[in-house]
């Protein structure tokens, strides 16, 4: 009892996570989805959709990444902190890309 400390603000684990266990069935469905969309990606690549080819390819890749993150990596059942952390990582990556692009895309506009 001497070791127990009341933690009224519950700072050590604010969200009191139940340790959610994802079932093998859910994993199998995700696995199946990933394989199907891999096939879709390859198939779509052989069709000439002009500007949309890379859009579709990247879109599918993002979707696959999302379901891996949410289910295989348990983020759907994780604390808010973990969700924000994942978001922060991708946000920073997007900053690197978009702000570098402000340079590269506007070079062709000429000097004023």
């Amino acid at each position, binding site marked *: 009892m001497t070791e127990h*400390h009341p*933690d009224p603000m519950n700072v050590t684990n604010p969200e009191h996570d139940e340790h959610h266990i994802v079932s093998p069935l859910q994993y199998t469905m995700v696995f199946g989805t990933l394989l199907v969309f891999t096939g879709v990606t390859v198939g779509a690549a052989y069709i000439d959709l002009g500007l949309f080819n890379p859009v579709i390819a990247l879109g599918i890749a993002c979707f696959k990444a999302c379901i891996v993150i949410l289910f295989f990596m348990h983020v759907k059942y994780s604390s808010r902190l973990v969700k924000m952390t994942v978001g922060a990582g991708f946000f920073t990556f997007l900053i*690197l890309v978009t*702000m570098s692009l*402000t340079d590269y895309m*506007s*070079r062709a*506009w000429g000097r004023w």
Partner: protein
Amino acid sequence: MSTILSLPDQRTATLPKKNYLNNEHGILSWLLTGDHKRIAILYLISITFFFFIGGAFAGLIRLELLTPQPDLVASDTYNKFFTMHGIIMIFLFLVPSVPATLGNFLIPIMLGARDLAFPKINLLSWYLYIIGGTLTLTALVLGGVDTGWTFTTPLSTHYLNTHVVTAATAIFIAGFSSIFTGLNFIVTIHRMRAPGMSWFRMPLFVWANYAASLLMVLGTPVLAIAIVLVALERTIGIGIFDPTKGGDPLLFQHLFWFYSHPAVYIMILPGMGVISEVISTFSRKRIFGYTAVAFSSVAIAVFGFFVWAHHMFIMGVSNYSALVFSLLTMLVAVPSAIKTFNWSATLYKGSLTFETPMLYAFGFIGLFTIGGLTGVFLGSLGMDIHLTETYFIVAHFHFVMVGGMLMAFLAGIHFWWPKMTGRMYPESLSKLAAVVTFIGFILTFMPQFILGYLGMPRRYHAYPPEFQVLNVLSTAGATVLGVGYMLPMLYLAWSLKYGAIAGDNPWQATGLEWQITSPPPTENFHEIPIVDYEAYDYERLEKMKKHEVTTVG
């Protein structure tokens, strides 16, 4: 002169019998420790060692610049001087300085925890630092690097045959040291606060280190990939930064500065955290606008990621992009200004005393403000075209880094020295050192603003004769500055054996670290405290003192 210093009766005072320093004996107990306090001491010794090597290079640079002719050393050698000075001072001194020494020591204690979240990774972090430092010295001994600390391509990839890859590897490894420190801090701050220690009850020192840790974790990997690519370019010739093969040298700079701009905030934010603690203690007042200061730390970290191309205005980025970055640079100055206003408001009607840490803090506020303002000048696109790559920039970053950060580091070392060692340093000598440092600093770097404005380029070791007077002034100042930095080395070492016994709370400061013994026990707290009060609660401290029982030994 009045002082708040309150030492126990020296006739009966002793150091605590069991503390983290004497808990275990033998060199292995230090080299294999998991104790964050011992790791902090290991870092302190290491970074001091590298500081003096970097300082030696500064001395050589100033020696060469005494005369307009390039007469002391050859051009390539001079390039090696400023390169090694930059690499060592930035990566091996400034980046780890406050976080790895004071942060490691204090953050668990300030939060009421027994250690950082990952003690083994903390130790690994120190070993990575040592390996990075050794590799840097290896590059030095093998002949040095002369690219400038910025490794600008295509100079570093195609036109030099110095030990770039060795130096790049060294920085890569030291970068991981930084990442692991930041990672440890973030997890500890989120998950290991004592019961009742909410975010807004944490000392501002913790907030500042938290913000810096975010930058360490998110920014450093981009530097890592940039220098990996430089190494690949040099060894295999992949063409990624090679204009003749279609590569863009500016891509390297985008990746490099994406880290290196947040890096300057990694360097300064922990120092600002120190200043908050010192100003509060020596004004006997809660920091004015605690929430604003806390949020401004995080704001600096976030905005710090949006402005990197202001280091590239003359390098060939498009003007439109330069405009965007210039505008954002103006914004990033705002949170720093908020902090400075809040510190000033704290001083107002505070009960001020001028012990050494406070002297360094005042020096910080003045010199950092000048440095920061000149940063705003440089952020303005039109001014920057004229001033960049001149001594104006050199003066600017030395004002913020040396006048700002190094002074904050010394303030912190002096402030927490009694806590870390149990001993007080000699106050009059330390005050003298602080004043000498301040005078030396102004003499060294103020002339450089003028030199830059008049057009003297940086990284040149010859200059037109009309600039000599200012250069001689600067070198003279550097000598004084050197004396100012030697003094603490000497008296701090002296104090380890002969300094007065400090007692638990010589400064009568608030904060959990002052409620345990000096030096602290290995486990920090015999019982984890329950925190039901705000930070900087001086009234509570007064009430506690009335009911205090002094323990002996």
